[in-house]
């Protein structure tokens, strides 16, 4: 790096890619994290999350605009990319670190893709009602079930609830599991079949995933099963990232340990 002609761009990249950037960014992010978490107690999880974690601009005392959490994350992402492109030495010694950084880039990048392209909603299904295609948006982070609600979007296929079941722990009122038996009607494929949705066993079809979320009772005692609906393009990234970061950290640790055994200063 020293022998290279220092251009304006590469000097900027050089700063962005240096470990001094996270040194600056991480404390800021930690402050946001602590304040935003504590605020959840006072203004609720949904409101606090919006203000401290997802809005690109944060208004301090309603008048001073500060960069929001996503801005700091984006900066960190840029820094990581710069580090990977300009500063990293692709040596055996640095292999672990490199892998970790690639993993974190994937995680943050995946988060970015998810936050832009994914869609989350929910679907209340009344037992034995006609098939429904309606998905509703969360309101203030909550799922609400009212007869007068307007659906936010339509599924390309329809679902109906055949049966809802709740299991209790023996001799208590604590639910041990609940599940919905649903019927899927796909007019385009001219097919109908039943499927079981329960905790940790969602139904996945045509890019949509349906999770058993909760249930409510109507005033006349009928059960409404509520399914969370997610259409997430970036689903694979956390899985990849987890694997790569784990591998990277393990490698890093082994390299450090081995290096010390051999007496290399690390």
């Amino acid at each position, binding site marked *: 790096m020293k022998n290279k002609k220092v251009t304006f761009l590469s000097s900027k990249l050089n700063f962005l890619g240096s470990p*001094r950037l996270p040194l600056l960014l991480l404390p800021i992010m930690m402050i946001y994290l602590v304040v935003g*978490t504590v605020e959840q107690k006072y203004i609720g999880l949904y409101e606090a999350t919006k203000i401290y974690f997802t809005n690109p601009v944060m208004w301090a005392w309603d008048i001073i605009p500060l960069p929001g959490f996503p801005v700091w994350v984006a900066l960190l992402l840029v820094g990581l990319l710069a580090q990977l492109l300009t500063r990293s030495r692709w040596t055996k010694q640095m292999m672990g670190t490199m892998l970790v950084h690639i993993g974190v880039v994937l995680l943050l990048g995946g988060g970015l893709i998810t936050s832009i392209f994914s869609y989350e909603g929910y679907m209340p299904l009344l037992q034995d009602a006609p098939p429904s295609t309606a998905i509703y948006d969360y309101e203030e982070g909550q799922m609400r079930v009212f007869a007068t609600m307007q659906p936010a979007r339509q599924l390309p296929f329809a679902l109906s609830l055949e049966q809802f079941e709740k299991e209790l722990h023996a001799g208590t009122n604590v639910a041990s599991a609940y599940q919905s038996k649903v019927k899927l009607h796909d007019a385009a494929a001219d097919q109908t079949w039943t499927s079981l949705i329960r905790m940790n066993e969602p139904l996945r079809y045509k890019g949509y995933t349906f999770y058993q979320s909760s249930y409510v009772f109507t005033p006349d005692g009928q059960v409404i099963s509520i399914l969370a609906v997610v259409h997430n393009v970036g689903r694979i990234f956390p899985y990849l990232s987890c694997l790569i970061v784990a591998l990277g950290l393990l490698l890093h*640790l082994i390299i450090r340990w081995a290096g010390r055994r051999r007496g290399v200063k690390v």
Partner: protein
Amino acid sequence: MIRFYVLFFLFLTLSFPLNARADNVFLDKRAFEQIPVLHEGRVKPVLSMARGYLIRFSGRDTVQDLDSYTAQAWLAELLFTPEQAMFRPVFRVSLPTLREVLGLERSSGHLYHYHELQQAFRTQSDFLNQTLALDSNQWSNVQKDLIDLHENMIVFNQLMNSFSLLRPLNLSSEMIDVLPPYAQDWARAKGNYLQSLIFAERLRQQATRLAEKTTKAGTDLATLSASDQAVLSLAFMLEEMRLHGALNIVFRVVPSSYSRMAQETGQSEFFAPWALYEQGASGPETAPIIAEWAQILQAYQNSDTEKWQQSLAKIRDYSIHTNSDLMRPYALGLEWGYHHVKPMELSFLFCLLGFLSLLIFFISGRGDWRRVAWISLSCAVLVHGAALLARVIILYRPPISTLYESIIFVAWVAMAFGLLLAWLTNRQTQRADFAVFAALLSGVILNLVAFTHTAHGETMIVLAAVLNSGFWLATHVIIITIGYALCLFAAVLAHVQLYQFPHPAARKTIGLDHMVLNTTRLALLFVIVGTILGGIWADQSWGRFWGWDPKENGALLIALWLVWLLHARMTNFFADYHIMAGLAALNIIVALSWFGTNLLGVGLHSYGFSDKTLWSLIATTVIEIFLIGGLLWRIQRHKRLII
């Protein structure tokens, strides 16, 4: 040399008799303790239930009355001679304001008996009703404790009346003389509610007719004949008992295959004696079992050891062969043993012994003390690990789901990791000793913290639906908890290192720096992987990877703190001892994200909250800040002196 081992094993043997306490009832409680009972979602030995309730009521596992009473002896008394148990002081009212409200006088340990509390509640029924009318999140501390106390008393009352259907009714001889013939024999033979069921329908019909007659005629009850009056009052008495008994469902000790659900599922259901009859679940198999319970009741009252043991053995034999997935005899035996060995107390004692021995070694330099410390740590790791394994077998689920379980797991990981590290490095070095030191200190502190989290009574509980989901949850929770443990271990070592800092020569020869840093790196690995796995679990379960839940944020905070420190070290922006101070402060960060996030009372992960937690958290933070600050000040002063 031998002296030390003798001392060591003397300590071992001494720690066992602590568990053996004399009961003033001579009946063998062992037979009673092992009876399987369905309680809070799983089948457990009566001993667990007794301990759970007694600790919940009184905050301790024995009754301090004239004599020391074990939990199982107390429960037996409560079930079989409630008129005595009513006067045992087992309810702790720790809030002074609540004592004032209830008009309770001073008593040792703030313990009160059922009877006096019942009186006190009678005078304060308005306050209780007002409280019950309010929404539970509007309750003040006094009201919360009042409701807790009230609920405990309801449970006590249920237990007290569990066998009231088998207890002879005390009717006056004047009344017996005028009863109709079908009831008279019963009354003379000191019959109980259950035996009255034979003529219950007849009695009820007769009483109804009498009641109708009197209402129609408008006559005063006093004008009825003595015989008619006796019929009415007996019918009324039995009906009262039935109504009261219909709500009695706590002591589910009779498995039955006759209930509707049992018929549907093909698995026996467990009933409390009253519920067995009220819910129509009795049958040819359960009748002899109820008869055996009646024998036990009598045997207890007459101190008839032989009958007591025989009947209990029969009941246990019948229950154990119940056809139910909830019944696992080996788990029952293991759980019974768990309560007798008290492995967590043993682990704590080992840690304490080891810790003190190591301190003596550091001061005196005698190698025997060092050996005692190493052996103690090994014993603690073994006992503690076996206990965790036993809990998994007993509960039939992954080891961590409550705060208490996370604490004992963290304690074990910290101890085991320290021992492993000590074995892996050159065992003759001081570095290895410091690893043992950190492990023992973590063990002592975390075991103490765990003891303060058993106040709710039963620590072995079933899972809520959201947590009852196998693989991802188990991996996520275990990995993140290992991360916490490694962080705490690194933090303790960092304290030691800060203490060593003014002596650079010693520090270099000991070479603890790398141990701290490598532990930190390993901790980072577990914290990051654990956190991402948590996201994956959330994605699998309800479709969102990250929800900004306090616990998630807490884990992220630890990860960011570690990443920050490791980068800070790389840039040489801070002095080495600042980095060490940062690692020592990991204690605070971990405590905040582990316990602190529960205080917020939001999100999925909040499992248990109390004001005590808040204060201990504040105290921990303040003490840590002073400790680390003091160590840093010491380093600064030393530097100035050298320059």
